[in-house]
C-alpha cells in the first residue's frame, strides 16, 4: 500500500500540466459566445445567446402598465421569470418552472437587472423578462443575465450600461492558485467554489455577486478580478452583437430621422 500524498484540493485536476483546461481553453479564456438580438417578433425585445453549450433565450415585454398590486409610484417594476427547459440538463427535468432553485435565480436576476435599468424613467410601469434555458452547461445564470441585457437593449429600454455576468472559479497549477473564467459544467461540478459576478463593466460597478460555496478570503480577490475581466470581455462581445444588429435593422427606418 502506498500513498501518494496528494491533497485532493478541489479543482486540482482542472488544469493540465500544459496549463490548458479540460476543454482546451486557457484559464483566462471565455467560451465561444454567439448571440442574436430580435429573434422574436411578438415581444418588445428578445435575444438568444450561446455561451459554449449553455443556450438561453430571453424575451422582454414592456414597459407596460404595472398590475395595481405591484405598481410603484416612482419606479418601474421588474418581473423576471427564469426557467429551464426539461431537456436542458443531462437528466431530463420533471417540470420547467417552479422549484426553489428557479425561484431563487428569478429573484437574483430581478435584482441584478433592476440595478442596470434607468428605472426612474417609467413610474407605474412594469417590465417582464422571461428567460428560458435551452441547454445548461454551466453558467446558466450568467448567460441569462447576458441574454436579458441584449433583450432589454433590443426592446429599447434605457440602461445605465451593459449588464454583463461572468463566472470564475479556482484551480491549482503547480501548487499555485489559478482562477478560471467562464466555468463550464464539468468544472463547476468538480467541486470548487464558483463565483458569479454580474457587473456594469463600463461604469465599474458590480450589480450582483454570488458564491456557490465557501472560498477562502485569500483567493477571493484573484477570482473576483478574473470574473470582472470576464465581464469586460463579454461586454465587448455583446457590444459588437448590438452594433451588428443595429446595422442590419437600421437600413429602412432611418427615414424617420428626417422628420
Amino acid at each position: 500500500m502506498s500513498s501518494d500524498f496528494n491533497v485532493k484540493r478541489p479543482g486540482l485536476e482542472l488544469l493540465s500540466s500544459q496549463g490548458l483546461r479540460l476543454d482546451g481553453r486557457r484559464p483566462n479564456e471565455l467560451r465561444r459566445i454567439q448571440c442574436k438580438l430580435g429573434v422574436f417578433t411578438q415581444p418588445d425585445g428578445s435575444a438568444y445567446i450561446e455561451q459554449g453549450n449553455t443556450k438561453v433565450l430571453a424575451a422582454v415585454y414592456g414597459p407596460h402598465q404595472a398590475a395595481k398590486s405591484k405598481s410603484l409610484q416612482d419606479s418601474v417594476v421588474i418581473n423576471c421569470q427564469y426557467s429551464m427547459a426539461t431537456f436542458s440538463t443531462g437528466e431530463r427535468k420533471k417540470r420547467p418552472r417552479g422549484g426553489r432553485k428557479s425561484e431563487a435565480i428569478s429573484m437574483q436576476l430581478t435584482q441584478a437587472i433592476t440595478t442596470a435599468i434607468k428605472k426612474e424613467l417609467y413610474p407605474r410601469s412594469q417590465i417582464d423578462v422571461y428567460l428560458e434555458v435551452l441547454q445548461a452547461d454551466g453558467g446558466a445564470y450568467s448567460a441569462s443575465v447576458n441574454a436579458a441585457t441584449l433583450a432589454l437593449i433590443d426592446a429599447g429600454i434605457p440602461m445605465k450600461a451593459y449588464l454583463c455576468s461572468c463566472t470564475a472559479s479556482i484551480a491549482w497549477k503547480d501548487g499555485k492558485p489559478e482562477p478560471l473564467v467562464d466555468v463550464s459544467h464539468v468544472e463547476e461540478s468538480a467541486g470548487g467554489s464558483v463565483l458569479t459576478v454580474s457587473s456594469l463593466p463600463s461604469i465599474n460597478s458590480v450589480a450582483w455577486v454570488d458564491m456557490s460555496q465557501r472560498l477562502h478570503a485569500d483567493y477571493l480577490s484573484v477570482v473576483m478580478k478574473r470574473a470582472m475581466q470576464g465581464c469586460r470581455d463579454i461586454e465587448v462581445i455583446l457590444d459588437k452583437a448590438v452594433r451588428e444588429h443595429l446595422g442590419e435593422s437600421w437600413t429602412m427606418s432611418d427615414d424617420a430621422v428626417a422628420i
Partner: protein
Amino acid sequence: MTSHVKIRLASERVNHSVPTNRELPRFYTPGEVVTGMEDFMRGHGTYASDDCLKASVAGVMQKVNKLICVRPLKNRYVGEIGDVVVGRVLEVQQRRWKVETNSRLDSVLQLSSVNLPGGELRRRSAEDEQMMRKHLQEGDLISAEVQSVFSDGSLSLHTRSLKYGKLSQGILMKVFPSLIKRRKNHFHNLPCGISVIIGNNGYIWISPPEQNNLVEEEKDEIVNVEVQCISRSDRETMARVRNCIAALVASKMLLDDTSIMFAYEESLKYDNVKELLDPEAMLDVAFLTQHRINNVLEE
C-alpha cells in the same frame, strides 16, 4: 383542413434584410459617452454621469439645437398630440375607459372625449355614465387620436370625429411603432378596395370596403354595426394586405400607404395568398417594394 407547418433549421433561415445603398449612421450603445456635458440638454435615451452625456439605449443620436437624444431601433410607442392610434379597451371606469395603445402606460379615453349620439354639445348625464359599457366595452377595438399627454407620459385620447370610434370587422396587426411612417393621413382606402388604419402606435387595422357608409351617424343608438357578410375575395384581399405588411415588417421597412400599395401590387404575382407566408416570397416582395420606392425617390 390540413395545414403544412414548416420548421427550418437556424442555418437555413432567410435573411430578411434588404440591401440599401445608404451609409450606416453612427450607433451609440448603452453606457457609451455621447458628448461632454457642456452646453447640451439631456434628451431621451441619454443620461448624465461623470460630467458626460451617455447613451442609455442603443441607437442613433439626434440633435435638435442643444437637445441631444438617442433614438433606439424600437421601443414602446411614445405618443404625441394628434397621433392616430388604434387601441383596445381594457377597462370601463368612472367616466373613462382605459385603452391599451402599446405605450408604456395605459391610455385614457374620457367619457367627455367621445361623440355621443345626439349632438356634440350635449351635457353628459348620469345616465350616460351608466350607459358607458353599452358604448364601448372591454375588448372593443377603437381608433382614436391623441388629445393630450399627461405628465407621467400616459395618453389622453379622443374620438370626436366621425373617422374615429369603434372598429368592428377587420384584422388587427401589431408591428413595432418605429416602423410606422408619420404621415398627415393615416386612414387609407387602398385602390384594392381595402381600408387600412395605420396607427402611429404600431397597431394596424385592416378592414373590408365600407359598403354602407356613415350608418352610425343616422342611428340613434350606438350599437354594433351589424355584422356583415364579407365576400371571399374581399377576405382574401385583406389577407394579402396583411401578409404584405408582414413581409415589409420582416424586412424592417417603413409602413405607409405607398409602401403597402407597392407591396400589394408586387405580391400579385403570387396567386395564392398563402404563398406569401414563405420567407423567400416575403423577402422577394419586400425587395421589389424597396426597389420601387427607390425609383420613386430618384424621380
